């Protein structure tokens, strides 16, 4: 049976996040030929709506309100519940982002439904859809089915491929007005600490440093390599504990879980807690002076050597590759 699926589009600094398109692809699979309706919330999001159509949304509903300029669970919750009430979807897809993680339990609780969080792939279509998600920090996986009620899932960024962009397609865009009242949280300030541009959890390339980076300054070559590859910098707990970098960069069991196409671990020994945060990356490269380091066991390619020699050479080689490409 085909289904109507509601998808939350997510914008960051005026641009749609990639996970919005990935969520549409997930929704298409669940809908099995039904309708995919994207929702955009904000103070001014109308111009982003067309983009969602090109990635497969059949319809886009925008809710614009001054109280939606910044995310609060109350504001977004009220807006979404109003859309859900109007549309009566049979499934809902969010990104498993900071926003999605914060908002989805509220909606699920309000609707008294199940919620399958952090889905990395979907098997089957329509009623037969089964959701696969990592548990025990990626040391195992579970297949989950929704028994009854709305199928509500959040998808982990970077795992479900978006549909190819089709400029000839467009979605029917409509706006809806919702009364947003009684916000219990006031956002005072947002301090941007994450490295400019590329979001660690969505990055296609991650260059991560461990204790072997030795100092805060030691992260500079890693940053340069990340810039060359359009990636983000991450770190092991060891590097964070030693104050070489901010905890916001930590990858592992505590910290972020990343699944980039390319993960370069520099000076990271590969403690089991770190592996939990990155072992599902597509390709893993290990650079370490210690040939016995655990990280080599999960790496696709390894170089035994000093990262401060290897990384600058890598930067030069990748630059050459870019010039020739």
């Amino acid at each position, binding site marked *: 049976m085909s289904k109507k699926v509601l998808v939350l589009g997510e914008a960051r600094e005026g641009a749609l996040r990639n996970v919005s398109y990935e969520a549409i692809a997930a929704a298409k699979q669940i809908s099995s030929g039904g309708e995919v309706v994207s929702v955009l919330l904000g103070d001014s999001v109308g111009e982003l709506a067309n983009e969602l159509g090109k990635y497969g949304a059949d319809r886009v509903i925008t809710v614009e309100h001054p109280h939606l300029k910044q995310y609060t669970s109350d504001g977004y919750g009220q807006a979404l519940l109003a859309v859900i009430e109007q549309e009566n979807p049979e499934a809902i897809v969010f990104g498993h982002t900071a926003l999605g993680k914060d908002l989805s339990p509220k909606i699920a609780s309000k609707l008294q439904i199940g*919620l399958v969080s952090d889905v990395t792939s979907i098997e089957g279509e329509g009623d037969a859809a089964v959701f696969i998600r990592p548990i025990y920090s990626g040391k*195992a*996986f579970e297949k*989950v089915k929704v028994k009854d009620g709305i199928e509500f899932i959040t998808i982990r960024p970077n795992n479900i491929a978006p549909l190819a962009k089709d400029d000839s397609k467009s979605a029917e865009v409509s706006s809806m007005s919702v009364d947003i009242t009684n916000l219990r949280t006031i956002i005072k300030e947002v301090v941007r600490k994450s490295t400019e541009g590329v979001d660690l959890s969505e990055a296609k390339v991650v260059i991560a440093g461990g204790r072997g980076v030795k100092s805060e300054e030691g992260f500079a070559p890693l940053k340069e390599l990340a810039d060359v590859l359009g990636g983000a910098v991450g770190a092991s707990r060891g590097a964070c504990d030693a104050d070489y970098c901010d905890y916001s960069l930590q990858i592992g069991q505590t910290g972020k879980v990343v699944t980039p196409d390319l993960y370069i671990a520099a000076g990271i020994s590969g403690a089991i807690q770190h592996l939990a945060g990155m072992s599902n990356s*597509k390709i893993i490269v290990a650079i370490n002076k210690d040939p016995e380091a655990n990280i080599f066991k999960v790496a696709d390619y390894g170089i035994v050597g000093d990262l401060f*020699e290897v990384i600058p050479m890598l930067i030069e080689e990748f630059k050459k590759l870019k010039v020739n490409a």
Partner: protein
Amino acid sequence: MNIYVLVKRTFDTEEKIVVSGGKIQEDGAEFIINPYDEYAIEEAIQVRDAQGGEVTVLTMGGEDAEKQLRTALAMGADKAVLINIEDDVEELDQFTAAHIISEYLKDKNPDLILAGNVAIDGGSGQVGPRVAESLGINYVTTITNLEIDGTTVTIKRDVEGDTEVLETSLPLLVTAQQGLNEPRYPSLPGIMKAKKKPLEEVELDDLDIDEDDVEAKTETIEIYLPPKKEAGKVLEGDLADQVKELVHLLHSEAKVV
């Protein structure tokens, strides 16, 4: 201040996961307090010490979870509650857990509830916010700093690396992110005292909950281990050649750059 901390007993982070018969094998495994819940316990103790009041740690599970509750009491919590569902609930999901915990809390009038932002086993991060929503109170997730002045609460929270500064008020549920504090280890006198602290055990009957009302909305149909990764290729030769080879492999073989 009436403070509750939601705690979960989880596998030790070092534990190897063994699956047999479609289930995770728990025999012989070491269990700990979910690491993120330790931040929540520590913060609760600090808030109580500064503001006065009482910290109750609450968990849902079986008899075995008493050990983790005693550890929390040894850290400095005042009371513990075990909602024992061992005999009543066969399959549970986040809906089930949140429903039961909310039913327990609904007449307790908590000013502040703390929880970890995610459990390292199930990894859903749902139960805290679901409980808040059921109780009709506000929640803030992944907090890294908490200041309470009267009923006004100022919070810093981690949003994918950025820090959001926000203001809200009690009653409130917060979930702890790493960086919130440095959880203390239980002291020897703390461990001795913990043995005498009250640990209440309740079952679904005591909460007037019918098993059918908390039936899981989702169902795990299979648990499996990820495919074993084949041993990778450690490059050899002159370092400069290795780097060239690596770039070539990433470009032509792996096709990731």
